[in-house]
């Protein structure tokens, strides 16, 4: 099967998923509502306390990139839940009996989830602007920051695709991934400056790819650490957050694209 066929089949599948976003707007509303809620809660509930620590007014500006990262990671669970649902409803059985490219379903699924994340990022960016977040660099740099966020989420999507085909129902995808995603997105520099974390957690957070992508987004949007006296990051990952993010995404894709494709070829309902 040629690459062109795989691409065009993938677009057909992606279009199908995007129609669903249009028909079930609740889904996109809820996936954007919770990050908006996070922005407001963190900015106004924790924000005050964190400002007291001497950070100044910058916490809200600092926070937004962290919430971007957290949200796109959570957005990736849609990939797994969507696939698990399609398997349960026998739609994957139908796709697998068609003479279409076997990789098109996963390619289309992950592609439409990128579109999903773009919509969510736009909504959150606007909310961020309302509470005081600003882009202090050039348009190109900020765009690069957003592209890194999307690349990172795309890699996680492929992990979630694999999980979604292994578990028996879409609900399990959500529950299982929350167990992993919450610590991953909280033990990081997403909501608090790293130097406030205790020793072992700080080391974990320094190498946590969520920290790197957050740091990259922050740097590229020009959002400073609210604590001007904060030490420079010591880990290579945070000194080179853009490169680390790209490397990390590449490794994940190299492992999970073939793994997910192999699992797809074995998936049947029941």
């Amino acid at each position, binding site marked *: 099967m040629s690459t062109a*066929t795989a691409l065009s089949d993938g677009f*057909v599948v992606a279009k199908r998923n995007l129609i669903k976003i249009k028909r*079930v707007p609740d889904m996109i509303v809820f996936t954007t509502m919770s990050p908006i809620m996070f922005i407001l809660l963190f900015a106004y509930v924790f924000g005050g306390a964190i400002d007291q620590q001497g950070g100044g007014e910058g916490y809200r500006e600092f926070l937004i990139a962290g919430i971007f990262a957290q949200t796109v990671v959570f957005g990736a669970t849609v990939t797994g839940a969507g696939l698990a649902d399609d398997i349960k409803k026998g*739609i994957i059985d*139908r796709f697998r*009996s068609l003479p279409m490219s076997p990789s098109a379903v996963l390619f289309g699924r992950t592609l439409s989830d990128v579109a999903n994340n773009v919509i969510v990022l736009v909504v959150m960016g606007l909310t961020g602007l309302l509470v005081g977040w600003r882009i202090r660099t050039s348009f190109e740099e900020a765009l690069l920051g957003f592209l890194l966020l999307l690349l990172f989420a795309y890699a996680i999507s492929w992990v979630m695709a694999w999980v979604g085909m292994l578990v028996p129902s879409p609900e399990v995808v959500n529950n299982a991934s929350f167990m992993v995603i919450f610590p991953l997105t909280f033990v990081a520099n997403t909501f608090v400056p790293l130097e406030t974390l205790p020793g072992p957690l700080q080391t974990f957070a320094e190498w946590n790819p969520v920290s790197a992508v957050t740091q990259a987004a922050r740097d590229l949007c020009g959002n400073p650490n609210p604590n001007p006296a904060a030490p420079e990051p010591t880990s290579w990952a945070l000194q080179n957050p853009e490169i680390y993010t790209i490397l990390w995404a590449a490794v994940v894709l190299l492992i999970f694209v073939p793994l997910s494709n192999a699992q797809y070829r074995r998936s049947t309902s029941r």
Partner: protein
Amino acid sequence: MTVSRLVTDAVIAEGLVKHYKEVKALDGLDLRVPQGSVLGVLGPNGAGKTTAVRILTTLLKPDAGRAQVAGIDVVEDPAGVRTKIGVSGQYAAVDEYLTGFENLDMIGRLYHLGRKRSQQRARELLEQFRLDEAGDRMAKTYSGGMRRRLDLAGALVADPPVLFLDEPTTGLDPRSRTEMWDVIKGLVAAGTSLLLTTQYLEEADLLADNIVVIDHGLVIAEGTADQLKAQVGGERLEITVSDATRIAQARKVLQPLGVGPVVVEEHQRSLLVPVTGGASVLADALRRLDGEGIEVDDVGLRRPTLDDVFLTLTGHTAEESEQAESDDQLEEVAR
């Protein structure tokens, strides 16, 4: 296997074996669907019907055995098989958030029919399956019967020469079932080769040219509906008497007419007499009962159904495979 069989058979399966962990779903299954004919695969839940369909439609690999669809080996060239088949399953695999039209159009695109042809084919099929009015509504709003028709339409998008329908009417109400049968009869008349699985004996009788009865992953009988019925014997005279106390007497009166022992179903006040000779026996039986002054509520002559066939072959009915062992009544009818 000779070359001519390769050409004339739409589906051939030989010795298919499939295990799911400890469970043996298929235990050496053989099937053959000659070109342009309908094979009914009949069996209770868990007999291995769906597993067989999944292997033949390239969704599962068999542990042993071989199968060809339209002359193409399902294991060696699954992609080739997929260009020749249409599949519709027991769970209507339609996307409920897409309209009927969008569902069919998407399938057409994935068969690589091209944009224009896909759209045209989608409209044609919606009309053929009387879904044209609902075609631009989300499938979510469809009734069970409509979804099933849409799913079947999906299987026909590319006009495949070989069609697999896995329990196409399971769970449908009687009216939708009859509608579905009409649709399938239309396809068959147009010369499509069809493998149909069903739990409904009536359905196999009505739609299939040949029937295989499978149980525990193995074919236990095959033939036309008539041949299978012949295995069970001739007709049965069914008489229900008004007064339960006179059953024993009725049995004595009717026994000379039977070609085998009369079976009594006490709580239904009915007697089953295996007979030959048709309507004249029926008249004779009524005369004899009348002569003894035994009143009759109901009387009928029936040919054995495929239910009787199943019962004779397996010792349990299609629907009641679990509890059949303990049900003496059913066992008695089978003998």
